[in-house]
């Protein structure tokens, strides 16, 4: 299943970020950093995505949105929290409308610190995410194989 890690597709969601990390995520796509050379494609459709990039912290409003996008993504999937707001709430953690980092709502695999996170750091985070993706894929394969074996055994006894 190496092809997922050779060409991971991303989906990006702006929680309640200040735009700083968003424009850096976009800058990753443009000629200076150009993540497409690694086969990374930014998609708008959660069903096509392997990696979920979240910028900005979570507030009351976007809990269901973040959860929905996460649930719509096919397994295996990896969540990368980009920027300090997505990691912990950052400078806004004391605000009345902010709940905190993304990990309050969905499981996060990679934390990318920085305010704003630099494009190099974001690319590094995505690459770290690939490791997690591969591991999850192996686990998934094992589960699928075990299930298959169990099913075949059950069929034999029938």
């Amino acid at each position, binding site marked *: 299943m190496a092809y997922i890690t050779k060409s991971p597709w991303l989906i990006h969601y702006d*929680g*309640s970020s200040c*735009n*700083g990390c968003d*424009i850096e995520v976009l800058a990753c796509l443009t000629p200076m950093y150009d993540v497409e050379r690694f086969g990374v494609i930014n998609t708008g459709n959660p069903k096509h995505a392997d990696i979920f990039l979240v910028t900005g*912290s979570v507030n009351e*409003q976007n809990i269901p949105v973040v959860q929905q996008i996460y649930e719509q993504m096919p397994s295996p999937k990896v969540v990368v929290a980009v920027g300090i707001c997505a990691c912990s709430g950052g400078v*806004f953690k004391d*605000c009345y409308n902010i709940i905190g980092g993304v990990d309050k709502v969905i499981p996060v695999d990679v934390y990318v610190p920085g305010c704003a996170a630099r494009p190099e750091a974001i690319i590094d985070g995505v690459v770290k995410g690939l490791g997690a993706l591969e591991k999850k894929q192996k686990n998934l394969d094992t589960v699928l194989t075990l299930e298959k074996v169990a099913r075949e055994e059950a069929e034999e006894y029938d």
Partner: protein
Amino acid sequence: MAKRTIIPFGPQHPVLPEPIHLDLVMEDETVVEAIPSIGFIHRGLEKLVEKNEWPEMVYVIERVCGICSFGHGWGYCKTIEGNMGVEVPPRAEYLRTIWAELGRIHSHLLWLGLTADGFGFESLFMHTWKIRETILDIFEETTGGRVIFSICKVGGVRKDISNEKLSEISEIIGNLKVELSELTDVFLNDVSVKNRLVGVGVMTKEEAVEFGAVGPTARASGVDNDVRRDGHGAYGELSFVPIVEAEGDCYARCKVRIREIFQSMNLIRQAVKQIPCGAVSVVVKGNPSGEYVGRMEQPRGEAYYYSKGSGTKFLERIRVRTPTAANIPALVHLLPGCDLADVPMLVLTIDPCISCTER
């Protein structure tokens, strides 16, 4: 009468990096009414004045928006300086002006790129953002940050730029001018681009005044409104004329921003030539106790900063009124009568910054 349909636009929409929602009431292909709903990313950061001391609050206000971050930092410092009657050294005012104008170039290039992407010209988007990286490199060399750099403080700036570095910047800007004019030529003269922009979403001068539009959106409709003319920063000593276009359509709004990029380049080169020597900050003693309303010309238009001190380390109130908040009523008025396919263009050409608006 044709049957009316309501088409929801946003909050997640491909042309919008940020969430804003519009309910578009349609009759066939034409919009008859638009009802905006915002507030998806309201953080309530103004209330952090109760937890942060005023010298530290500048870090929070800079994060109102990651695109015009320097401008917000300056606006906050300006309102506190006005509140306490602090006189900022002239060199600091010049440096602030240079950074602010660099910020305007970076913001307008970002907008041009997003607009190109909005009308489906992806290679133009890529080229524009490539040029933008040059500006970000200057930021990084002079401040250490690419988009948010906390260089402004109450009483001046944290870091000086050496005169050699300044003339180097001036040279880089000069070279950029040549590269950029090739690109803006496409925006202004390409037939397919003009098809999407000319005559679309016309706002007359009267409407712009009636709906309180600010910044490039207003100037493209012939409203001569530019806060830089009140003489703050170093603007009083630099010569410039606000850029005004009369047509008021999407093309005019695009043209105003393109001409402003060249104007900013010109302002930076003037400032580099005239910058005086001296200190870059003064020591500020005491706590703010009065109140003051300050204004700044951000890349998107006029912004207000209101501060009310309490004589302690904690301010009573800080309020930021951002340019997009003033432009949304104009947008809502513009939309009725346009085609559904033009809605993304109209929304983009006011250059909305939602994280600013909702704070």
